[in-house]
């Protein structure tokens, strides 16, 4: 597979996958901040989401208008089969190589 993901892209894709179809900008941001303990700006999340969408790893749909957003709709992201496959492939590859590390103590 010629596609590959950067670390941040991979994280966002994972989170989108983990939240199934409830992932949207702010939620992704909050998850990132909690789990990775890293200061991220919302615009960075959007940039990644747009890139993933362009590459076909996620797809999006509008939800219904929400009052806490000034009446605007949320945009939910869902991981596509292609995205999932990419993740699988990436993890399989890593797992495979990871296993080849000899069980030697690195102390």
């Amino acid at each position: 597979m010629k596609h590959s993901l950067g670390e941040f892209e991979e994280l966002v894709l994972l989170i989108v996958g983990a939240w199934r179809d409830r992932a949207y900008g702010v939620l992704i941001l909050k998850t990132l901040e909690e789990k990775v303990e890293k200061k991220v700006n919302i615009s960075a999340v959007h940039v990644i989401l747009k890139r993933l969408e362009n590459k076909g790893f996620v797809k999006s749909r509008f939800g219904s208008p929400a009052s806490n957003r000034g009446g605007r709709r949320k945009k939910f992201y869902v991981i596509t089969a292609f995205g999932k496959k990419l993740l699988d492939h990436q993890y399989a590859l890593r797992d495979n190589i990871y296993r080849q590390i000899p069980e030697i103590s690195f102390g």
Partner: protein
Amino acid sequence: MKPTPPKGALRFLRWFCREDYLEEIEGDLTELYEGHYDTSPFKAKWKFAGNVMRYFRPSFIKSFKTNPHLNPIAMFRHNFLMTYRSFKRYKRLFLINLFGLSTGMACALLIFLWVDNEMNIDKFFEKDDQLFQVMQNLHHTHGVETIEATPVPLAKGLAEEMPEIAFSVAVVPPTFNISKGVIAVEDTRVKATGQYVSGDFFNTFSYRLIRGNKNKILSNKNEVVISKALALKLFNSTESAIGKTINWKARDINRLCLVSGIFESPPSTATNHFDLLLSYELFQEINPGAGWGDSSPRTYVLLKPGTSIGQFNDKIGSFLKTKDKNSKATLFLQRYSDRYLYGLYENGVPAGGRIEYVRLFSIIAIFILLVACINFMSLSTARSLRKIKEVGIKKVVGARRGTLMMQYMGESVLMAFLSLVVAMLLVVLFLPHFNLVTGKQLSLNFDADLILVLLAITLFAGIVSGSYPALYISSFKPASTLKGRLDSSLGAIWARKGLVIFQFAVAVVLIVSVWVVYEQVKFVQSENLGYDRDHVIYFDTDNVNEDFMFKIRSIPGVLNAGGGNMVAGKPLGGTNGIHWEGKDQGDAPFFSRLWAGYNLIETLGMEMVAGQAFSEDFGSHNQIIFNETAIERMALKDPIGKMVKIDNSEMQIVGVAKDFHFESLYEEIKPCVIFLAPIIYAPKVSVKIRAGTENETIDKLRRIYQTHSPEEVFDFKFMDDDYQRLYASEKRVAILSRYFAGLAIVISGLGLFGLLAFTVEKRLKEIGIRKILGATDLGIIRLLSGDLTRMVLIAIIIALPLSYLIVTKWLDDFAYRIDLKWWYFIGAGLLTMLVAWLTVGTQMLKTVRINPAASLKNE
């Protein structure tokens, strides 16, 4: 209450952000903002704004390019087609616009040609920026008088002492004392204008010298340089002229001169026209002993490059004091090419001159063009009602406002270019007549300047007349236009009315001005000057004697005749060397000097308030006459019989002449002294002819003249013609402004006509209903014309004070002027009103007579 994110940041985001991303980003940002708001509202706001800024990057900014699929050629073709169709459909409107704009542009163009010519007078010299004329300020106790005449040795003196001067030249102008001289070569006699010039003439002025050496020319006092035209006339070729002798006779000179050079006649843009140049030394020989105290020649200098004129003026100011301790005169320089336009001085301070007319006409040109543009503006805005659907559809389909503005602007610019074509035709057609009125030889030379001006005028007209309609029409809201509702905003109505008011105000101002100029010119022409110039002719002769005068007087048609240097309205020379009993030490008033032979005063019908005119019975030549102003100035009581001393000779005052206008009416009457001219000093003979016998009397005069002095040419002028020439520029202004006022009112009338035609059409149904309900014809006329009357009235009210200011300022230039009468103003107002009513009258009648059934039938 929910906190709302900062508006500015939000607006900015909405302006730049891609529309497909906008909702998501806005939503997420708002959600975050609300979360932060609970902890710190202030920080939340800043964070929001900061976040917005982070989206300001290429991947989120929308494309500001217009539709990439837009085909500009197709668009222009479409616009062009629309314009063409609208012209074709509204032919009358189109013709009104075309006629108005093209006459306006033709006016502007003609005036430009004239102004351009005026601005280029005397500008043809190579070193125009270094060429200056030395002017003299005479400081009297009563003020400062600025004159062109300078002391005889000045040119030489300046050149020797001032290192800044490259060349200097003294010139005795052709108009000085003598009008024309006679050149004789064998039997050919030609009248020609000559001037005496010192050696560096061709170095200072870059007139073209065809033959001769410009450094050596006129170094010999018997040399003469003649113009090419004169050479061809006398000798048939320029080559053979060199080395020939000609006989020059003018007043007290009669001598043979050797032709040593030939010059190209000055171009038509020169103020100084002359046919031959004689040596300045010759002039000095004829007028010996002229020193620093006298003033007659003009002095011109060519400064070295880089000389500061301000500093140099300071330096030469008191130059005359170093030569003559008693001198009360100071010197200053004025650029030679500025003399023509800025020739007037009042009390030593520049006071404009012809430039006033240049400015006046430039302003008139702009106003006429504006009035014409306004026609276009008000007609197109009025017509916009028909365009609302078009604009609505275009906007819905996605036209931007800018594109629409371009379309309407393009329409008016196209109109302007069409008008340009017609305007050029009009200019070509009217140029000969215009030249006749202005006394110029203007022509359309398509050089870069003219083409630039044409483009400028056209674009100005196009853009000005397109600006308001473009802004107005393109501002319609698509939804309301498609519903067929046009909210004519108050602003639009007022703008339209304002335009009409402006047009008519301009027309009123022009009419008042024309009226006043006309009355003043009439006044000047019929003003009692204190002498009678009707049926008086005068001619030059060098050969006057008693016998000749006797013969003239015995012609039956001659009422009287006398010699003297009286020329209608020409500024005279003068003297400040008159001494009288009781004169203050140090007071040296300037007296204009007039030479009159016996009988001249009677010939011109001048009145004496005391004493008598010159009489041979007095027994001596030492008689003198002053005018009333002079006597007042000298504060003499009982002047008759008193003695005055002039240039060391005692003269007895024999009479006091009633004040008369020896100069133009621009000038106050000044002190004047009349010397008794001995026969030989009276080269100009004035003859009063019995009315109705002019032709035969002049024939007889000619015969006597030719037998008496066979070597001269009988060349006479009517005094009245000369007088009329004095006011030639006023007359030109009068005629031109009459044309322009007429045009302005015609153009405004046209606009009004179009506008009314349109309103009437719009209200046709309303009128039909009113008629059915019993409205009278008069009522409908009042309904339709009420608005118009109000607008014209407002225009008149605005224009009258304005025109009062303008005409009083113009009249201020005249020392003798008409009183402004109230009816000039009221009359102009009524006339404008009348024109307005007449223009719309026919339209009204047609509307009133319409059958209501016809107008209500169609929906």
